[in-house]
């Protein structure tokens, strides 16, 4: 009896050792596979497109003196068609990247009793401010919203889980949630086949046309704005946008909140 137990333990010990070393061997070989594929992918490199526009910090100046309703509508159309923004009939499902609002809503803190007559009726385009200190980025639990090196606050729709914390955090209402499948509300003739749509359950907003900057183009709204929008590098003192800001008094939305918006308004 004693002998039997002894030999059983010996046998079991050797088997465990043998099986263990087998799986160890397995692990080693699979590591080798990973290493070799890693070496293979090291040959491939990523880089920026040659004609990409770059900046230290992208910013925009909206010159309301050059604006009218027609230009505003045109900018909205250009943007929404370039980015496959759906046009839901139900206001509750509305998706907006750039839209027009009135002065008292755009600048609630500067709502004077005796406001200049012109500003009362003027449509003012509003969009994501691409804040230097963006509250939406802090609120996002998955880093789906992040700040690029060039200051653009961008959405990575692959990561968005649709929690909408960013919408609560944004003081400008710049973000929209896809309550419905956006493809239902994109007209086929308006579809931009080079840009993806979104899916139900993600948040979206203006991306400062990151995809157009990458191929050397100005943002879609700037292109059709007839000079009312000036887009450029806020980090470069020689840039056109900085010259405009030097020569003109500009205001920003809800500046007292400390978000440091990159969109300036000349009123």
């Amino acid at each position: 009896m004693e002998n039997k137990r002894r030999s059983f333990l010996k046998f079991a010990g050797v088997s465990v050792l043998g099986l263990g070393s087998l799986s160890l061997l397995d692990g080693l070989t699979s590591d080798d596979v990973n290493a070799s594929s890693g070496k293979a992918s090291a040959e491939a490199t990523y880089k920026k497109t040659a004609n990409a526009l770059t900046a230290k910090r992208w910013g925009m100046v909206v010159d309301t003196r050059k604006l009218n309703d027609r230009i505003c509508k045109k900018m909205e159309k250009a943007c929404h068609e370039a980015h496959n923004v759906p046009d839901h009939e139900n206001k509750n499902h509305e998706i907006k990247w750039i839209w027009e609002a009135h002065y008292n809503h755009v600048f609630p803190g500067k709502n004077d009793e005796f406001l200049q007559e012109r500003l009362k009726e003027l449509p003012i385009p509003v969009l994501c401010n691409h804040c230097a200190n963006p509250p939406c980025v802090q609120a996002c639990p998955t880093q789906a919203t992040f700040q690029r090196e060039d200051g653009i606050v961008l959405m990575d729709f692959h990561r968005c889980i649709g929690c909408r914390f960013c919408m609560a955090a944004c003081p400008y209402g710049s973000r929209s949630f896809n309550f419905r499948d956006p493809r239902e509300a994109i007209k086929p003739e308006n579809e931009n086949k080079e840009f993806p749509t979104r899916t139900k359950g993600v948040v979206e907003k203006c991306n400062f046309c990151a995809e157009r900057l990458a191929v050397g183009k100005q943002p879609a709204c700037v292109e059709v704005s007839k000079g009312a929008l000036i887009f450029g590098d806020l980090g470069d003192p020689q840039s056109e946008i900085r010259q405009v800001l030097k020569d003109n008094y500009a205001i920003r939305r809800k500046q007292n909140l400390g978000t440091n918006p990159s969109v300036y308004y000349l009123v």
Partner: protein
Amino acid sequence: MSDKPKIIIGLIIFVAVFTFPFWYNHGAASSAPEPLLSDKAKEAKHCVRDTDFMRKEHMQLLDGWRDRTVRDAQRVYEIEGKEYMASLSNTCMECHSNKADFCDRCHEYASVDPYCWDCHTYPKEKK
């Protein structure tokens, strides 16, 4: 010991039920589908990487493309001196314009359901 026949009958039933899926499906396995190349893909002969790599690791490749494009703004994928725009809809689908025959066949067979197409567009196919 008088329970011997009962036990044996029970065992036989157990084995029969347990192995049912095996002999029921025996011989019914369909062969692995072969993805169909579009005319343009056939003409090009060469994909971004070699066929073996693409077959095994296209998902890792696309994953890298999407991360580098979205998060690092590096949209150009350079390999062996050739440059490609890292874009599913605009680069891959330009040659592989037959999603149903090229992508879906294997994905369906392997029962994977990639959600690329929830957002990314693909060429409309003639039926």
